[in-house]
């Protein structure tokens, strides 16, 4: 196969996610009464970025054929931490950001240790660790409150040169600084290999433990960035069960829409970003069509169900029925 065709096959999931997002966004913008203004784009970008960060975290773990049901709670925990530490002069603020990111990284590393060295199934291990993270968040912020350095917060949720949303620049920076080096390193390849076939990867001497550990730890870090961004967005912290649950569940939906296979080894974090934006846009479509907000959850659910059912078309191309079963 030629190089570009191979690349196309490899990136199919991501490209489909980009296409879904563009289609949804065009429908959204063309029906929005304000049209395509910098303000509309910025609001959409900020809302999408929150979910995109959590979905990126989820994608890293899903690529290793795991699942992280604690991303939402790490997101909430780091939000609570950030509402305490990000204040004061620029130096103190920078230290605060570092602390928040460190907390996220630590949570991810704990998940990694329990799953890899404790040899537990990720789904149940992260249910347990998620409960612990949420408990700590509850100790920190039983009631909504806290402050944040508003200059930094406004800069991060505002626009650069009045046009480009700062949140999108941050996402691009994370992709360039975290995802690209990771996916091209031996450790990143090992994470993919562990997701495709752990036994085969182990036999080939791939450092699967290091790869999986890095994926879990980085997932915690990205969820931490998400929590940080939520604090910039709301100026406060809150240990909310509903946002922890919602973000965990939405992150799985975004990852699937983004073309990352839940069986592992396929897809990319970039796809997850577009999956998250597409999912958010679907939710917002209700508002531009001026329908009752009550119908939004049902609409979102039906679209999600339709989108995942659509993947079943691939079944028709399977030549050997055995491939239906794993």
């Amino acid at each position, binding site marked *: 196969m030629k190089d570009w065709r191979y690349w196309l096959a490899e990136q199919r999931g991501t490209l489909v996610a980009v296409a879904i997002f563009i289609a949804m966004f065009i429908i959204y913008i063309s029906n929005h009464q304000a049209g395509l203004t910098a303000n509309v784009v910025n609001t959409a970008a900020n809302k999408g970025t929150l979910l995109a960060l959590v979905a990126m975290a989820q994608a890293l773990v899903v690529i290793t054929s795991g*699942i992280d049901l604690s991303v939402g709670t790490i997101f909430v925990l780091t939000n609570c931490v950030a509402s305490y530490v990000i204040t004061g002069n620029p130096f103190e603020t920078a230290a605060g950001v570092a602390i928040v990111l460190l907390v996220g990284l630590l949570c991810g590393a704990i998940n990694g240790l*329990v799953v890899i060295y*404790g*040899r*537990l*199934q990720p*789904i*149940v*291990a992260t*249910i*347990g*660790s*998620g*409960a*612990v*993270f*949420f*408990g*700590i968040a*509850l*100790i920190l912020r*039983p009631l909504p409150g806290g402050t944040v350095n508003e200059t930094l917060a406004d800069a991060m949720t505002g626009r650069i040169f009045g046009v480009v949303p700062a949140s999108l620049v941050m996402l691009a920076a994370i992709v360039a600084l975290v995802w690209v080096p990771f996916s091209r390193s031996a450790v990143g390849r090992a994470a993919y290999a562990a997701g495709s076939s*752990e*036994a085969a990867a*182990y036999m080939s001497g791939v450092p699967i433990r290091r790869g999986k550990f890095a994926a879990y730890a980085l997932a915690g870090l990205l969820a931490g960035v998400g929590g940080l961004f939520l604090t910039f967005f709301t100026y406060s912290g809150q240990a909310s*069960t509903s946002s922890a*649950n919602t973000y965990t*569940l939405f992150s*799985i*939906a975004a990852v*699937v829409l983004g073309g990352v296979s*839940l*069986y592992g080894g396929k897809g990319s974090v970039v796809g997850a970003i577009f999956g998250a934006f597409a999912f958010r846009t679907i939710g917002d479509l209700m508002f531009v069509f001026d329908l009752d907000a*009550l*119908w*939004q*959850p*049902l*609409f*979102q*659910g*039906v679209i*999600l*169900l339709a989108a*995942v*059912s659509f*993947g*079943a078309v691939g*079944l028709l191309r399977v030549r050997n*029925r*055995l491939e*239906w*079963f*794993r």
Partner: protein
Amino acid sequence: MSDTAMERFAGRMPRFLRRADPAVATAFACIVLLLLIGSLYSSNFLSLDYLLLQLKVASFLGIIATGMMLVILLGQIDLSVPWVVGMGAMMACAAAAYGPLGTALAIPFGVLCGLAMGLVNGVGVAYLRIPSMIATLATNAVAQGLMIVYTGGFAPRDTATDAMRWLATAALVPGVPNAVLVWALVGGAMVFVLRRTAFGRAVYGIGNSERAAYLSGLPTRRVTMIAFAASGALAAFGGVLLAGYASKAAQAMGDAYLLPAIAAVVLGGTSILGGRGTYLGTVAGVILITLLQSILSVMQMPEAGRQIIYGVVIVAMLLLYGRAPASR
């Protein structure tokens, strides 16, 4: 001790001990340990009244976990539990508003709604081959959407029927709450299905290897679909009972049952990968989780501490006996 000596020693143990799954035994040992810790705190913990009350509270989780176990045995998972529980409760209460016929059919109608959602899950997972995690997530969102549209976003106003209240709170046999009897019936049926029917054996077979089961001529897709439908029906039935217990349905009433149901099944020694596990273990897991929650609330532990201890106990217990084999 040599192997033969070990065998002779094992041979002298009672039959039920020899056959006991170490996971189930550990879970029961932890229950006893929890009761002992509780009794140090207050002597009430060993009283019959307290234990029966706990069993009654556990029966709601028990019925929901029964359906969850069936699905986990297949190597799948059902994340649609929260809103199917809510749907069962709300629809049963809603039917009660439609005259005597509605009142009479309230319970079957609630269960039927759950069955329908379960069927959607089953068709998606078995025939469309959508990974169960995302298929059930989507139906959960649909069920939530339907209920929000139905109630208009407010707390539902309908109340539970007398039959639902009787089933959840009365005691047909003096001293034994009806809810416990219902759980016993559901559990008995589950044990029968798992151990004595072709369907039950097929569930274990599919959990071990769906390919092998398919090649052996089992109708794997039909079995998977029925299991998901049963899980939906049981979750809705749990919701119906919960509505009877609280006299009415509430928004998001099922949220508190998803993770405990999964945790109960897994703590009871059922492999999350499917194919392995006994119903006795699930019973132990359900009682363990209920007792843990009860003891923590009696000790007036704040919610934060409860969450932390809850999480640590789940991970610690799994590290004790739920680990995957080391050799690869």
